[in-house]
């Protein structure tokens, strides 16, 4: 009886450890094989030679993501100072120059990996929607009060401490200058301006 209880205890601990560690790794985000400032990516996303952990992460946080020959996906869960992104804070995203890609977009997602509810339905900004600058760059405001042109709303209601969120930068048909230099290509800076 004593042995049986011990074996049962071992089984419970093994299941909890095995499933818990698997879920923790699967839930860690869409790959962080390559870090570029606040942005992370994994060139194996969607690839037919992806390892099991990348496939599992894609299934959790990027199902139906294209492979890198078609699209490079960069995700940020932190700002440039390393602080987790919060819906209660306002951030300025600055692209100094044009991104060498056919088309790009930046979209905000909640912790559940879906679009964040907000009254303005302002979920993203893209190459064809931001105000052009002479340098080819752009500036986007991300935060609770962000509305109108060049803004992405995070839906913060003004109560509580805010929720974590993430940003995805999509680069469709990127030039080789991007996918050959994922860790060093110039990507938008994410600077916190303040919190409510």
């Amino acid at each position, binding site marked *: 009886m004593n042995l049986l209880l011990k074996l049962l205890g071992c089984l419970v601990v093994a299941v909890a450890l095995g499933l818990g560690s698997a879920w923790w790794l699967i839930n860690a985000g869409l790959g962080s094989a390559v870090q570029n400032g606040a942005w992370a990516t994994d060139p194996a996303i969607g690839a037919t030679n992806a390892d099991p952990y990348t496939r599992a992460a894609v299934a959790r946080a990027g199902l139906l*993501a294209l492979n890198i020959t078609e699209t490079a996906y960069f995700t940020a869960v932190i700002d440039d100072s390393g602080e987790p992104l919060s819906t209660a804070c306002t951030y300025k995203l600055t692209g100094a120059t044009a991104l060498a890609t056919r088309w790009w977009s930046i979209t905000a997602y909640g912790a559940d*990996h879906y679009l964040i509810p907000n009254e303005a339905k302002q979920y993203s900004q893209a190459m064809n929607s931001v105000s052009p600058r002479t340098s080819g760059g752009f500036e986007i405001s991300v935060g609770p009060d962000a509305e109108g042109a060049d803004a992405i709303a995070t839906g913060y209601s003004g109560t509580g401490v805010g929720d974590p969120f993430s940003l995805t930068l999509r680069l469709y048909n990127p030039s080789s200058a991007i996918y050959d230099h994922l860790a060093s290509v110039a990507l938008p800076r994410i600077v916190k301006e303040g919190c409510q």
Partner: protein
Amino acid sequence: MKSWPYLLAATLILAGIIHITAVLLWPGFVMARLVSGLETQSGINLAVHATRADENSRTVVRPSPDLIYTICAFDVSEHPLKISAPVPDDTYFSLSMFGDNTDNFFVVNDSQLTKNVVEIVLVKDDDQLTTLGGPPMVVAPSETGVLLFRTLIQSEDRFAELDAIRKQAKCEPVIPTQ
């Protein structure tokens, strides 16, 4: 004799096996759930024209609100699948295919197409390659999976036009005539 070292070792080994099994099975489980959901919602081997992504959209994980999606769950176990769609002018358009393990095994975009229409036959194995003629063929690495048409909403003024074009996308089984 103390048994705890053996129990600890067995627990860790079992935890490792459960961990690896969960990581390996998770992608197939998620894809099977997606295919099953689409089959229940509208049927298999049928194009479904999703509404523009908003906070209520749950078909595609991390959807892009700048794109409009047409999705088709496929099952080529019995018949090949003919896929066709007109290609809109002056905007990004792609057709991508995903196996039952989430791998993006095929993608083509508007800039790679020479015609204003994309036509492809999806087959399950090499045998079917010799029995059919016509459009280019793609061999699916799994009998079930999902294919996705993406169309960029190049400007809000063009939304109605692009939405009407992408709704002409089709998935239809190729059933031999008797």
